[in-house]
């Protein structure tokens, strides 16, 4: 309970600091929001009016206060750039609400792939006593780890999209229209995200297992008459998972926050793409909320990792 309280206080403090820092950054970076909204041909009067309307004439501290108060009330503000219709600005909440499911589903799919493939692969690898398999896996994982994900994305698009025609490159169905179609469009981007991570995780797990296999309790297990397989799955795996869990946590935080490159390459309307475009158009309210979201996700995932650690290792209290 005390632990939870401590975590929550840390979370609040971090969110506050990060939002303030992002706000400050927006004061410093060059570029005029009003000019970018109205274009170059607007009259100075029109610009002044918009400036007044958006509250740009207030001192920065007041503006931050107003914004923060809004967020605390649940009002995330409106986008400077997108509009709902002719008269209404687009609320940030709605804008993000539209894109978030894409990123979250993409992340979930990637994570499932990573876990389902890398753990058996890692165990198999650690178990293998054939030098050939060891060498082959070594080369493959090394290569996969080294290739940047955008290039992998292009490769996947070319192979499955253009050559095999399993999916239409650049195509996309909204998740509200056709959920399964939506998922199938996410599959290949998910593979692009997952492949390098699978390689890393499998390699990491294998190393961790090899280290653990030298431990005394493994010898004890053999002395009881356990088979190699039983030793690996029954004794070594759980102990070897500890460092891997931390690693997986880092991956989850990374992909839930949006895979900017992969979303860009596959043309997916997710958080990552929104972040890029909002920064380039100085759409401050959107960027602020996205930064808060990412911060929250990272902290929350690490919190989950902490909990998971305690579940896996009874020594941690």
């Amino acid at each position, binding site marked *: 309970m005390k632990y939870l309280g401590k975590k929550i206080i840390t979370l609040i403090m971090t969110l506050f600091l990060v939002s303030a820092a992002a706000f400050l950054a927006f004061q410093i970076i060059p570029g005029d929001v009003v000019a970018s909204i109205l274009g170059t041909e607007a009259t100075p009067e029109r610009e002044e009016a918009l400036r007044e309307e958006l509250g740009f004439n207030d001192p920065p501290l007041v503006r931050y206060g107003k914004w923060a108060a809004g967020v605390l009330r649940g009002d995330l503000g409106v986008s400077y750039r997108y509009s709902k219709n002719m008269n209404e600005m687009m609320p940030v909440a709605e804008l993000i609400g539209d894109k978030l499911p894409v990123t979250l589903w993409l992340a979930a799919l990637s994570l499932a792939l990573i876990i389902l493939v890398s753990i058996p692969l890692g165990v198999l690898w650690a178990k293998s006593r054939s030098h050939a398999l060891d060498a082959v896996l070594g080369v493959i994982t090394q290569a996969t780890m080294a290739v940047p994900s955008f290039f992998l994305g292009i490769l996947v698009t070319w192979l499955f999209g253009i050559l095999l025609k399993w999916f239409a490159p650049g195509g996309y169905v909204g998740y509200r229209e056709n959920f399964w179609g939506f998922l199938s469009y996410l599959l290949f981007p998910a593979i692009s995200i997952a492949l390098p991570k699978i390689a890393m995780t499998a390699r990491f797990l294998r190393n961790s297992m090899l280290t653990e296999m030298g431990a005394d309790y493994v*010898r*004890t297990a*053999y002395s*009881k*008459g*356990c088979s190699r397989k039983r030793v690996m799955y029954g004794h070594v795996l759980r*102990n070897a998972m500890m460092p891997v869990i931390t690693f997986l946590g880092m991956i989850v935080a990374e992909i839930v926050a949006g895979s900017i490159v992969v979303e860009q390459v596959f043309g997916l309307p997710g958080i990552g793409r929104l972040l890029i475009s909002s920064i380039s158009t100085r759409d401050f309210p959107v960027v602020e909320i996205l930064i808060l979201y990412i911060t929250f996700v990272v902290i929350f995932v690490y919190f989950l990792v902490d909990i998971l650690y305690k579940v896996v290792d*009874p020594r941690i209290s």
Partner: protein
Amino acid sequence: MIKIEDLSVAFGGTEVVKHVSLELREGEILGIVGESGSGKSVTALTLMGLVSEAAQVTTGRILFDDVVLREAGKPCDLRIYRKYRGAEMSQVFQEPQTSLNPVQKAGKQVEEVLRLHTKLTGEEIRTKVLETFQAVGLHDAERVYASYPHQLSGGMRQRVMIAMAVILHPRLIVADEPTTALDVTIQNQIVELLRKINKEQKNAMLFITHDLHLARRLCHRVAVMKDGCVVETGTAEEVFDHPSQDYTKRLVEAVPSRVKGKSGIRGRSGELSAAEADSGTSESPEGRKAGNGISEVPEERKAGSRISEVSEERKTGGEISEVSEERRAGGGTSKVPGERSAGSSGAAPVLSVRNLSVYYQDGKSTLSQEQAEGQGRKKISLGSRLFQKRGQCVVWNADFEIYSGESLGLVGESGCGKTSLSKAILGMNRHIEGEIVHNSVRPQMVFQDPYSSLNPAKTIGWLLQEPLRAAGALDKSLAMTRADRETAARDMLRRVGMDERYFDRRPSELSGGQRQRVSIAQALITNPGFIIADEPVSALDVTIQAQIMELFLKLQEEMHLACLFISHDINVVYRMCDRIMVMKEGHIIETGETEEVFAHPKEDYTKLLLWGS
């Protein structure tokens, strides 16, 4: 029943076990004794088929009831072994801490043996495990069953290991140093348990140990191993009482034992300075100490009244905070009340500890030194109660002195507060009440594990100079030039019996004994006058142990060194120390002259410690 015939095991071309032949009969306990690296563990692991895959059996074979378990030139056949391991043969390992799977409950780990080798149902398995737990002395069986290894004490963990090994009544039990990692009193219980199991189940036992006392107590027959060869076999009495081989003789000789008396080194040092001993203190029963060339000390100590007077004055003088102030400044001799420094330079204790209680803080509430001091002046009972809320008291009201040139042995089991006390004395733990007065400059420490306590990235020369550099940095008047430091380091290296060519080597290139020599040199290079040695020989082999102890005594004499010697090994303490202090659960329960304590221990616990082993 078990036959090891002409067995040789090699790792990458180097033979570590050479033509070993051993035979083990039903119901017999065979001890294998030898120092580390003698191949005793590899022999046992090969027998169990647990030796690493890098090891090759180059000659000979292993037979279990005429079934060939392992043969030269063939890889380990896991299918045969899997049938035998756990059911017919089992092993108890040295480290119960690491030999149990940390993430599985104890019960489940023992159950696994039954699941692998029997067809019992879940309920039967559980009952059997609980019964076995009872039988190995785990009376709180249900709780142990549901506990993770880290929730059990060292002794309990070893009992769990033993339960695992004996649950199917295997005909062979290999026990590889099963008590080495345990406290003396627990050690005895475990040895007795193994003996009982051997009697009841009539299984053969291969008992591997470096502890000759233990081998003698437990084993019917003993094989002595050295450099991979069996040098001598015979009944325990034959081997230890009438060793036929030189190596066995040396091994038996090297073991510190109160049975042999303190003849060796003490005797020699007595001769060396016999002339000094004549100069007035020959009537003292403590000629031994006089022999060390500090003839005033024993007299002074007998005239105890004077010393206590001094400390009495100091106490009333309200000097406490001043003294500790000095200690914090890292200084030493300092502004101690005038008369004492004038009066008796040799007679005053090098260290006196008065009413010292040490607290273990879990980082939550840190008391300032002032607060601690303030409470130190209150009535103790009140003080401790106040403290109990904030931290756990690990040492209660310690009260003792150490005199120049003297070794005070501190014995007790792990967790009794030995290390906490020594840390408090060195100022590494400030959560104390009471007072500590040093009269030495910069007390130093020699640590237990020479493998991990030397920085592996630095050369020996650099390491030796470090205390000098540190001293120079704290006190400009002690600063030395680089050349002076190097000379001092080389000189020190020679004094600990090491060649100068080691100056530029790194710790990894040295053996354990050499490393411990370096540690000692490091502690002595500032000529501290007082050192704390925390289990300095526990990690070493017996013959090396003997050398290091001899070195210690020699240097102590040369440098007039006072020493607080912490050890769990009663025999080592007996050899090394003039006085002994027994500690139990944070209390010093008995203090006295070594011979006196050994001859007439007052406390039951002391008797247990002394005669248990």
